[in-house]
């Protein structure tokens, strides 16, 4: 059992004691937030009513069937007019296939991850809540042009996380 | 590069060794009769120049009229692989001899086929449902299973 007379154990102890002198790699979440990647797939959807033509490709591409879209035909210019566009983010697994499939770039993934709700019903997003507002950023997933609006990702490999922001 | 053996070459050898082991027209995709399955499998495993000692997988496909059980074997020595299949007829209680005797790796996979398709494997050491609980009615992976 003591093939190397305890030297192996002492080596292991050396490594642990030396870790006392290194910075801890954890950060205090509420006050020190690490920046997520610019392509982070947040747990909400952003939908622009103008660009959307009601073709429902996103609803078809969603493997979970989380997108529910009801359209009515406008006889005047023979186009679809979207009446309700509802996304149940409880079903949504943030896979981003809808963003990929949409031919008119009308739907994006959000960038926030703090959208926990208390009631199951509040998780469902209706059409007007999903408008893009200055604080509700759109993730650069599949749209590189949004990348420069978002903060640079903090990489753990770059630095040991210093204290404070 | 694992060479996938063409069916024709092996079919000839098998036909001479076990006449009538193939179903009609089963030569091109190595469709073996159920009752001569064990002899063919043993032959493929023990033949020195074949030596298919590694069973990749055993799976079943439900084609309404029959269940097709597909076996893929690989010979680690000669780095060759082969796929052969059999058919289990009947919807209520299809049976099929079990290859666990030759390759122990098939043990859980055959239990899974029994659990999700309902194909009973004769000669299996411990044929019980593997994923669903004992009292579960029906076999979910069948095409006509409606929940």
């Amino acid at each position, binding site marked *: *059992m003591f*093939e*190397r007379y*305890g030297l*192996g*154990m002492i*080596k*292991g102890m050396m*490594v*642990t004691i030396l870790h006392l002198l290194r910075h801890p*790699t954890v950060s205090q979440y509420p006050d020190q937030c690490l920046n997520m*990647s*610019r*392509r*982070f797939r947040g747990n909400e959807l952003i939908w622009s009513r103008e660009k959307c033509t009601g073709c429902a*490709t996103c609803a078809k*591409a*969603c*493997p979970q069937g989380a997108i529910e879209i009801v359209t009515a035909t406008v006889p005047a210019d023979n186009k679809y007019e979207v009446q309700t566009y509802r996304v149940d983010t409880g079903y949504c*697994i*943030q*896979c*981003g*296939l809808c963003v*990929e499939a949409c031919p008119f770039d009308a739907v994006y*993934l959000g960038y926030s991850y703090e959208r926990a709700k208390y009631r199951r019903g509040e998780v469902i997003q209706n059409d007007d809540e999903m408008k893009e507002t200055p604080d509700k950023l759109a993730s650069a*997933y*599949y749209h*590189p042009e949004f*990348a420069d609006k978002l903060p640079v990702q903090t*990489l*753990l*490999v*770059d630095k040991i996380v210093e204290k404070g922001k | *590069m*694992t060479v996938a053996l063409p069916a024709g070459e092996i079919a000839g050898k098998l036909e001479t060794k076990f006449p009538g082991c193939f179903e009609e027209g089963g030569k091109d995709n190595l469709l073996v009769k159920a009752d001569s399955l064990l002899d063919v499998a043993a032959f493929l495993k023990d033949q020195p120049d074949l030596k298919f*000692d*590694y069973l*990749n*997988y055993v*799976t079943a*496909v439900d084609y309404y009229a029959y269940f097709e059980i*597909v076996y*893929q074997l690989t010979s*680690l020595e000669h*780095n060759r*692989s082969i796929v052969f299949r059999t058919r289990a007829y009947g919807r209520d209680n299809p049976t099929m001899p079990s290859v666990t005797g030759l*390759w*122990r*790796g098939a*043990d*859980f*996979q055959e239990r*899974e086929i029994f659990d*999700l398709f309902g194909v009973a494997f004769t000669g299996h050491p411990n044929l019980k*449902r*593997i*994923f*669903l609980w004992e009292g579960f009615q029906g076999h*979910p992976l069948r095409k006509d299973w409606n929940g």
Partner: protein
Amino acid sequence: MTTTQEMTLRTEPFVVNFGPVHPSTHGVYRMRATLDGEVILDIEPVFGYLHRGIEKLAEERTYTGFIPLTDRLDYLASMSNNLGYCIAVEKLAGIKVPERAEHIRVIMAELQRIASHSIAVGAFVNDCGAYFTPFLYLFREREKVLDLFDMVCGQRLTYNYMRIGGVSQDIPPEFLPALEKYVNHMTPFLNEFEFFLKQNEILLARAKGVGILPNQAAIDCGISGPVARASGVNWDLRKADPYSIYNRFEFDIPTGEAGDCYDRYRVRVEEMKQSLRIIGQAMKNIPDGPVRADVPHIIRAPRGEAYGHIEAPKGELGFYLVSDDSIAPYRCHIRPCSLINLTALREMVRGWKVADLIIIFGSIDITMGEVDR
């Protein structure tokens, strides 16, 4: 089935349930162990606590729609699951993947192998009793791999990054320098980790010669991956049946001799080093060009069947696809390397003690998502 045989002192075996909620069963896995004191007479695994019927779901989803579901198979190596599925569909539909996508796929698969092996080794030593320290050191390094995945595809665990015919998006410009920094940083860490645990006497005493899986039994049970290589089976799909562009890289396959827990731990650490070598080579000669063949979002595979398999971190992960000329596969069978690796657990464990049962089970390194599907 309990085996009672002639015992000197009149004792009787008693049955203990390890799991489904047990600190070291790596998920919801249950073993009904028949114990004679501390010695294990027999164990009977019970599966099914995480069965979601993914193979049935596959028959109702388009080929691209199923990719997010493959992330949930072996949720610790979802990049490899994506790769396995995409390779199978490309074989079925005969799609050629552009050069740049192939290189990105190799880099992602090898990064995923390092992340998955670091959990396997961390959990194994944690089961041995080292109170979370090696586990947390390896998790700190895995965190850096997750940062790279996060930069590329936006998620940290369920990537959904690969598509049929290539990858979903090109890597951002700041990815390659970060990857370079990671590779340079990871090699000294692995040496320090070796210095930390390789000759630890207690780990040697606990893991050497314990749970021996003979070479022939490994092949007979269809065992693949590090568990088989530790028993001396020199079979790695990246060399034996090179998929994607693995034949362009030179790396070697670490194999053990005795096939005990210590060899499995050693093989996994060596494989992490080899993965770093592959990433280094792939990083240098990554060409420019498109990252995805022009494949529609919803493809319609020609009638027929195909089996594509890759060397996932846990073993040979394969997808057997049958298509009947519609947008969804007629049948999609997933070869669960974790489930098949458990076939030999029963005779590897009999006769050892309770503490060894946990170690041997931990050294096989399974993920319940892939076992129960």
